[in-house]
Every structure is written in C-alpha cells, then in structure tokens.
C-alpha cells in the first residue's frame, strides 16, 4: 500500500483544517475507503481519522420534532434504535438491507452517504474511468453494464450511487449538516450527490475539507411512519447491492393520499427523488391505477445506458410494489429479510 500520513484530530475544527490540505481524505470506518486504497483506486497522502471526534455518534430528537443523526452513528446502531426505527421505518429497513451485519456494525452514516460507486471499471485501475481520472474516458459505456444507470446519466459516466440508506432519506427531505473551511452550512441531501454531466469526477457538492457532521430529518418525515416501506431487488437474498430499489412513504387521510414520497435507488448517480410521481399521487386514492401512473411518471425520463433496459421496467414495477406495500401499512416489526420481496412470506425459514 502507498505510504500515507495518518492523523487523528481531537476536534471538528482540527479535522477540517487537516483535511483541507490537498491529498487528504477523511477516514470513517473505512469499509469503502480502505478497499479503494488497497486496490489503488484512491491514493490519499493523508488520512484524517474522524472516528474519535466527540459528539458525532448520537441520535438526538430536536425540539421542533426533527431528529439529528450524528455522522459517526453506526449503520447498525441507527437501524436498531427502537425509537428511530418506529418513526422512520423505511430508513431502518433500508439500512438493514444493505451490505452484511458485519459491515453495518462498522459503517458510519457519513461514510454511507459518501461511499463511491460500485462501477467495476471505477475499481479496475487498468480501465478508463472519468470518475477516477477526469477526462480519461468511460469503459463502462460499451462494457459490462447491465446494472448501470438508467436515469440522469451522461455520455461521460453511467455509474450509479449504491447507497440504500440514502434512498428513504432523500424521500424524507433529509438535510446534511456540513462543517467546512468557512464554518457550518446545510444542504438538502437531494443536492449532495451530483449527476455526472461533464464532470463525473465530482461525486458531490462538497468542497475539499468539508466534513459531514450530521444528517437531519425534518419534523414532516415522521408523519409517514405508518405507511413507509423500502424495497430492494437484488441478485441474491442478502449481501448484494440493489439492482433497483424504492422507498415509498404515504400520508393517507380519509382513504386518500394526502402526501406521497417516492425515491429510487440503483438507477442514477444519486438517490433519485421522483417528484412528479409524488405530485400525481397527491389527492389520489391509493390503488393500482394511481400507483401505475406514478411509476410511469417516475421513469418518464429513463433510457438505457447499455444492456440495462430491463432496469427501467423493473424500476416501474418496484415503484408500484413499494407504494402498494406502503399503502398496506408499515409492518409492526422490520421483517426478518428487510426490504426483500420475500419479506412477507409466511412460515418461511429465515437464516
């Protein structure tokens, strides 16, 4: 491995100062970053270990009804925080559908948001990749790309963002709190990840040295608690990234949808909020016809970027299913196979 400097700042200010120097990278649990370093994909000169920073590992309910999740909260701890899971069940379900138990025990909230794409050509340093090396080309475009993006991609990059966690978060209007060189600022999560356009090397709106300190869910997010689901199609029952996924949350009043939230995962370089679909659902009855219509709208702009046309149809179907499940009501407990199409199988043995 390339030799690098390792620093462990004691305060957020020290961390930001250390990371503002060129060639620096924040190290959280390292479940993504260290893999990238071992593969020679990331070659930072210095690692700024944020895992000992004080005060960032708490889940705090705030007075205005919102909740603030520290950037160092472990994925597993957040998912198993009973109060949190009850208020934001789709978020808990998404977290528990990601990676493996061991990885979730280690992975942090901040790291999950900023994990890099799983595009195989990004990982393979012998391939051309605009995201890894600006302007070098994109070998995925004509390569093995059946799992690549169908929305928001550009000729320069067809990669997807792999996070499950981010999908319900973006549906629920999550806000990211950032500490940077010029102090604290906030950004809607929907604006954190960038579509590739002609600068795929830039994954996010963050500037060098910017540290995510927390993610906030506004008070409105908990109003969907009784009708919120996350659903994820994958190529094995667990421990696989999404082929496509969807988070659906409904507020149902008097048999009608008062408000709908819908986002898709595995389809674009960012968690994909389907605003127009949400609009059409507002005021509609929660039935197959309106869900179908929402699905059509959600994928209206989709086009294949390779051998992946099937993902468009699959995404429509998963939207319909996620909305149907959300309308049926959040289950009392997170299913034994979270976010799985097999979650509802009665009497099935789950290991």
């Amino acid at each position, binding site marked *: *491995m*390339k*030799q690098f400097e390792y620093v462990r700042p004691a305060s957020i200010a020290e961390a930001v100062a250390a990371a503002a120097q060129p060639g620096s990278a924040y190290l959280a649990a390292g479940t993504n970053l260290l893999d990238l370093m*071992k593969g*020679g994909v990331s070659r930072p000169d210095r690692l700024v270990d944020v895992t000992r920073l004080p005060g960032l590992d708490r889940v705090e309910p705030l007075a205005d009804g919102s909740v603030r999740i520290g950037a160092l909260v472990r994925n597993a701890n957040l998912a198993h925080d009973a109060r949190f899971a009850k208020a934001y069940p789709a978020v808990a379900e998404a977290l528990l559908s990601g990676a*493996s138990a061991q990885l979730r025990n280690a992975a942090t909230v901040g790291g999950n948001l900023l994990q890099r794409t*799983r595009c*195989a*050509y990004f990982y*393979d*340093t*012998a*391939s051309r990749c605009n995201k890894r090396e600006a302007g070098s080309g994109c*070998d995925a475009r*004509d*390569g*093995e790309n*059946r799992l690549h993006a169908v929305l928001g991609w550009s000729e320069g990059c067809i990669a997807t963002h792999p996070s499950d966690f981010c999908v319900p978060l973006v549906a629920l209007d999550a806000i990211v709190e950032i500490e940077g060189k010029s102090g604290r600022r906030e950004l809607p999560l929907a604006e954190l990840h960038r579509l590739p356009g002609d600068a795929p090397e830039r994954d996010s709106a963050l500037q060098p040295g910017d540290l995510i300190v927390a993610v906030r869910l506004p008070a409105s997010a908990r109003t969907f608690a009784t009708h919120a689901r996350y659903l994820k*199609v*994958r*190529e*094995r*029952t*667990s*421990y*696989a990234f999404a*082929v496509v996924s969807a988070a659906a949350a409904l507020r149902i009043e008097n048999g009608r949808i008062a408000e709908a939230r819908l986002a898709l995962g595995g389809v674009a370089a960012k968690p994909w909020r389907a605003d127009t679909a949400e609009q059409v659902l507002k005021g509609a009855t929660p039935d197959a016809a309106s869900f179908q219509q929402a699905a059509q709208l959600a994928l209206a702009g989709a086009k294949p970027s390779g051998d992946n046309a*099937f993902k468009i*149809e*699959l995404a429509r*179907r*998963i939207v*319909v*299913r996620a909305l149907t499940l959300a309308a049926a009501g959040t289950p009392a407990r997170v299913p034994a*196979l979270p976010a*799985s*199409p*097999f979650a*509802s*199988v*009665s009497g*099935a*043995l*789950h*290991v």
Partner: protein
Amino acid sequence: MSELNLTTAPAHVRHGSNIGQPLTRRDGVLKVKGQATYAADNHLPGMLFAVIAASSIARGHVTSLDVAAAKRHPGVVEVMTSANRPKLAIDPEIKTNPFVFRMESLQNDEVRYANQPIAVVIAQSLEAATEGAALLAPRYEALPPRVGLDAGEVFVPPVVGVGNPTVNEHGDVEAGLASAAKQIDATYETPPQYHNAMEPHAIVVAWDGDKLSIDMPTQGLILSRARIAELFGLAHENIHIRSPFLGGGFGSKGLMGGPPVLGIMAAKLVGKPVKLVLRREQMYGPVGHRAPTRQRLRLGADGEGQLTAIEHHARTVSSSYDDFYEPAADASHTLYASPAIRTTHDAVRVDTGTPLFMRAPGEATGSIALESAIDEMAFACGMDPLAFRLKNYAEVEPISGKPFSSKALRACYEQGATRFGWSKRKLAPRGMRDDAGLLVGWGMGTATFPALMFQAEARAAIRRDGSGVVEIGTHDMGQGAWTAFAQIAADGLGLDVDRVEFRSGHSNLPDAGIAGGSAHTATAGAAIHNAGAAVIAKLADLATKDERSPLFGAGNTGVIARDGKLFRRDDESRGESYSDILARAGLAEIEARGTGAANPAAMEEYAMHAHGAVFAEVKVDPELGQVRVTRMVGTFAAGRIVNPHLVKSQLFGGMIWGVSFALHEEAITDRRTGRIMNANLGEYHIPVNADVPSLDVLTVEEHDPHVNALGIKGVGEIGITGSAGAVANAVWHATGVRVRRFPIRIEELLV
C-alpha cells in the same frame, strides 16, 4: 502429524465398527479455536514477503517494468522478473506427464491471459511488497484478446477431460430422431466459474542448501513434490511439503500451478524464506477455472415417452497455450436409457488461464443442460418429470451396455419424492402460488458421478502398548479426511478410533494419491484398510505359530481382530490381546504396508457410478423476478457411507453449489479486454445464508462388492449434479419461462 492434537468426542463413539458412525470432525476443535495452522499462518524467522504483480492485459507482451521505482520503495528487497529469475531445471512448458499443466514462471515477457504473473516483488513487509508491485507500472504491447465461445476458429480437441474420447456413439441417433414423436432441440449456456476456495493459494518456503521445506495447501502432496523436484532439479526426498489443512480446494489446488513455483523461485533468488499468498483477484487466472460451455441437446421420444435418441454436443474453450476441455457432453452417457446416444465436443482457444478441474468437471456443466432438456422433453410428452425419468430408467449403462456394479437410484427417486411431497406437483407451469402470492415451482434432477479410484499406499503398525498407528499423506480440504480415514484405520486394525494415531498431511508419508475425482476416500481408504489387514495377518501369524498363545494352531480356522484382541474365529472365548502377543515376541511394534487401486477386471465388467435424486422448490416474485430456493431434498446412493455426518456435509455443500450454479455464479468477463470484472467475493455471487433453504439429505446405502473392498463410492462432487438442474427446472415450473443461459437472471423472468 503427531503434533496435531486431534480429539474424538467420546459421546459419538460406539465400540466395535468405526466405519458408519457419525463422528464429529476430529480437527473441529482446533479449527474453532483458530489453532489449525493453514499454510499462510506460518511465519519463519527472517522471512520475506513476496507479492505477485499481475498483467492487466490478456494477450501481448510486457515491454517495460519500472523495477527501479519498486526497488526504491522502502522495504523492497528484490524484484524478480523474466530477466533475473533463477533458472529452472526444465522448461515449464514441457508436459512431462498428463497431469502437468503449463504455468507462468516468468519464462519470458509474453502475456497469455489477464492476471498472469509478470513479476514478483519481495520485501520486508506485505505492505512494502504490495506497493512495490504497484510501482512497477508495467507497459505492454497489447494484442486484441480472444474472449468467449465464439472467439475464434472452432476445432475438435483430441480428447476431453482426462483422456476421454471427444466423440462417443452408440446406436443411430439420426434414425432415433427421425422416428421420434416428440423432439427437443435446445441450446444451453454456462458461464466461466472460479473455484474461490476460502483459503487463497499460499506458500511459505525455505531453502536449506538443496533441500526445500514448504508449507502449502495441496490436494496432491506427492504429485506436487514430483513437479517441484523436476522443476528445480531436486531429489524427491529433499523436498518436504506440509499440508495439514486446506481451506477448500475444489480442484484448484490439485496440480502445481505457477504461483507457488514463483514463491520457491523468489526464496531462491533472495536466499531467505519467503511467503507468497495470492490476493483474491489473483485467483482469477493462474489457478484454473471451470470453462464456459454452450451445449446443444437434441432428444427424441416416442409416443409413450420413451427416449429414442440423445444427442449432446458441447462447445467449450481452452487457453491459447494448453489443453483442458470440459467434458460436458459425457454427462449423457450414463443416466437415461436410449437406443441411440451421441456425444460430441468442440472448442475454441481464448486468452484466459487454462481451465481446469472444478468440482464435478464436465458432470456439473453437462448435468444442468441434460436435466433441463429432460425436463423439457417430459413436458413435451405431457409427463411428470419423475415419471418420465422412471420410464427411461437405465438398467444397464446406456453408452456401454455394461451392468452397474450397484445402482439404488430407484430407491433415491422414491424416497426423495416421498420426503418432498412430489406427488402433489401440478404438471403445468405457473400453476402454483403461496399465500403471499409468490409463484411456486417444483423441479427435480438426477445426480450422478463416476466411482473412480487412483493409487495409494499406506503404512500401518501395532505398537507394544496395543495402540495402532497409520501413516498416509492424505489431504483434508475441509471434507473431514482426518476423521473418515481414522475411522477406516481403526477398523482395519481392529481398534477403537482413539487407540489409533493417524498421521497425515505431509509429503514424507506414503502416497495417498490425489484428493480429487471424489476418489480420495475410496483410494486412500482401501490402502489404509489393506495395510491394517496386513498388520493383523502378521500378528495372527505370530500368535497362531506360538504354542504359548491361546491362539496356537488357529491358523487354519482363522482369527478375527476386535477391540485390540485377536479371537479364534470358531471359538471367541479364546483370544489374546495385541500387546500380549507383541510382548511375548519381544517386538516393539509390528508393521505392514497396503495399497489401494482400481480393479481393472471389475472396471471392464461393470459401470460404476454413484447416483442421486434432487428435488427443489423455488419461489419467484411474479412481477419483480427475484428467485429464492425455499426447499431442497437430495437423496443419494453412493456405496458405503463411512461417516454419515461428514457425508451429509459434503452433499449439502454440493447442493448449495447447485443453487449457486443455477442462480448466482458467473465470472463477468469484459468482452473487449478479457479481464474479469467481478474478481472479488462481493460481486462474484455465491449463495449467502439467506439463499440457502433448509436442506434435507438422505442416503440410501448400497452394498457394492465390485467398486473396492470397502464398497465406497465418492460423495465429494455428486451433490452439485442434479441440484443445479433441479433448481433451474423449478424456476421454469414456477414461471413458465425456460431460461437456457445460466445463471438465471432477473431480467429473463420479467414477463
């Protein structure tokens, strides 16, 4: 290995016959405590770390390596390239016997596949060596690689597998097809797969003058030793290989490949002990794989559902520089009776590492295609798949006409079907749902694997204190060899298993043959059994000729050995303990050797195979296409079961691999570069726990007097055959969609 403290859980031991008891594995405690030493766990004083730099192109030449940059990196001691590598005693391209495969040992700057070793960096730490390898920044002159089953000129190889004829024919296939009332003509594809043993290939090696001391996982201690001896010009007895445990091999650790040879060369170059361990992605190239296949099956059946012809053609690939051809079509030789059978193979050369044996080579790939085609034909005939298979049950081996040495397949079908509840299956596909609305499908497949034997030798002795010792260089790949062989050894010596010291796992012991072809237990077991019998015979000779012994004069009626004593066969009240016999004779121990090998006369007369029937249930989400296996029953008849516990585990493992074959496993090769894009365990999917249903394994005992003295057939590979097809057929039954390209993918089920 006497330093291994192998224990037997006493609760599981019944006195008397040791074979047949479900002993828990004797090395289990060591493994659970992390005390089982695998090759890479060894650290020698002064040892250096060697890391392979691998090619990123699949075909061409290395034109430059920045050796200076690598050497400048702190900790790097040496860089071994084709320019400075130690000379080998013979050209590794020379195939000195059919089990020698060509390997990369930095002979020159040619690149023949992606991930080929092109240099080795040796350093004081693993990290330094790794970074040194990255700093080499190779430049290449690249040629367009040949990738996939249509990459080049098609040719017919002289043989497939290990010396099997490329073409086999019996009866008139064209006539059979012409007379058929129903015909199936279907083409199936299977992808390249990689062994992915949990333990990567590794070597820790130290030279001492012209002696070599090696820790290395191998499925063939003596074959490996012979290959090392010829490559380095050493006497066999100067090479000592220890391989007490393997973290899986599946065929990829059977024959000497390039990486351990590079480790030995590196140690020679630097004059220090060296450790070389492959990174996971480096296991996708130089250590073999299962070649992709495209198989066309043409079946004919008459109006009654009786097969009139089976034609099975398999296309496969080999590397540009060596020959191994997956004998996929041979799967059609033994299972279904047909007046006409023709199996043929052809191949193209592609720029990959040479494909090799991988758990059930030929049988696994061939089985999923054959079992799918049989399923298609059963449906075309309007018959239940089990009824169709019974209708076409082979009473003699179809391709050869030989009788089977034993074949309890009918019992397997019956017992498996009953356990599974097969009779409730609906004939039409897409006709079953569960209460959650998921599509339910039931499928089956027939399993088969030949009962092979290689050659082995064992040494056995009884010591003055009445205990026994058996020595043979067997291989425990996780299958439980330490345990099963100790059981056979104990019975051979007429002792209880904890009275026998079983020494195994290194190359100074008698040759146990290769642990492959599901033949290890049969072959080494026969040698152990015979060595034990020979010791008992010597002991009996001593006693029956000694007038002070109560057994005096019993030579003609014979004696039997049990619980450390010899008894007169005609009067069991007269007996004497082993230790008394030895004490009186003034002997410290008495020893003998025994061998195990196939019996050519029996092979001439009989077809010898293990069989089984696998039943699978899958559920498929009707809109989303995701598949999950929810139930599997496998019933197997494989001769005598030495240890039901271990055998069950082997069969479980095989069945899970069948699930993997049908639904998950595939090396995704970039069609332009020949590089494998998912060379890691995150993206090279195999089933995880949540994909593995509760498996049910039943065994039907066969008493086979012909396969070998102990009546053992193998169980290591059969589990994967039949299972893959059963899952694929269940997916069809659930969905009505016949997918002929494996693994079955979600998009194919989005109807």
